[in-house]
């Protein structure tokens, strides 16, 4: 089993059960480092610092996923970062716009999300190499 990772970003770019020399060469031609490794789900790992590590789990918990599109009704998303030494902050993408969330003991909140017109606001991780977590969607509707 071979792993391929980007030595610059630490991204875990590939895993192959028994790569041919051509597959290894294809990876190396893209600037990746190829090493031996165990079978695993690469979506859960990274190679930050050149070492295989599990991604830090982030949980996004909105208090509601449906809001009135009136500019008043709000969804408050709690951000929880796992681990014994969580960072002081984490960047998320709210409808594609970056927002930094200050964390205390791994917990924090996004700016309350509201909308004046019907839309769907997606909240995702900005750094998917270090962290892993499911995105959430806040749907704003005009219920008359």
């Amino acid at each position, binding site marked *: 089993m071979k792993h391929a990772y980007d030595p610059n970003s630490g991204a875990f*770019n*590939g*895993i192959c*059960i028994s790569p041919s020399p051509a*597959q290894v060469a294809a990876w190396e031609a893209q600037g990746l480092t190829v090493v031996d490794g165990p079978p695993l789900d690469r979506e859960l790992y990274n190679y930050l610092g050149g070492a295989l590590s599990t991604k830090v789990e982030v949980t996004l918990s909105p208090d509601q996923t449906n809001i009135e599109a009136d500019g008043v009704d709000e969804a408050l998303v709690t951000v929880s970062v796992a681990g014994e030494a969580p960072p002081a902050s984490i960047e998320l993408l709210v409808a594609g716009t970056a927002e930094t969330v200050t964390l205390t003991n791994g917990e924090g909140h996004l700016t309350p999300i509201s909308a004046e017109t019907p839309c769907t606001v997606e909240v995702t991780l900005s750094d998917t190499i270090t962290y892993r977590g499911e995105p959430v969607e806040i749907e704003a509707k005009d219920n008359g």
Partner: protein
Amino acid sequence: MSDQRIQYDEGMVGANHPTKSDTLNRLMLVEHNNDGTHDISTATLGHLCGLEASRKDSDEFYLEPGEVDIGGASYTATAQLTKQVSGLSADTWYYIYATAPSGDLTAGDISYSSTAPSFSGSKVGWYNGEDRCVGVFKSDGSSNILPFYCTGGWFFYGTLEDGVFLDTSSPASSKTAVAVGAPNLGRLAVLIHYYCSPAASREIAFDNGDSSADLSSNKYYRFEDIGGASEVALLTDASQQVNYRAQNNPSVTLCLRGFKLPAGMTA
């Protein structure tokens, strides 16, 4: 075989003459027993029917009732057999062997080994020494039997993810051989499940393991503007490799869904 009829210049000699060969019965005895019944072992050399393997649990597998020729004689398992395993290595293919019993086949006549069989032309089957290979299974990272079943001459993983052999966000952009992770049984017909991340102008192409093509032509298994999952049937080379290439960097996951058990290992 030469002409077995009594010739004009031969004497007619029956069975059990103390010094002369039996010429009267010689012709009839070709593929027949002394009582006139058919010699089943000769007529069915290499025969295998049933005995399909499947996983029972983490350390047991089943073999269905069936019949198999081992070394020129036929043996029957009249009921489903359950075989306990132990001491497996992790992430390893194991080959299921049947040893010729004195009567019917039982679980005690079934063994398993990581040593691959080879095809015997004289015995018309896959053998390791005198033991005939009737199936395969694979262990997981914890040395447990991976979920699997065999049906219609095909081996299938019970869980799609167990067959992943390539998962990358940096696929090769020119024709590249990749091993599918099948057991060492020569060229195999395989069913590949592939997933590509969606985006316009992305494509993935496949071809058989012995293909000399560069996969740029539409003649090959080429899927353009793709996104999502599908399956393709291919033939590996003798090292269980197929060829692929991807354009415009989709994330690609290739899984071995299953493979056709080779001739001599299936009915």
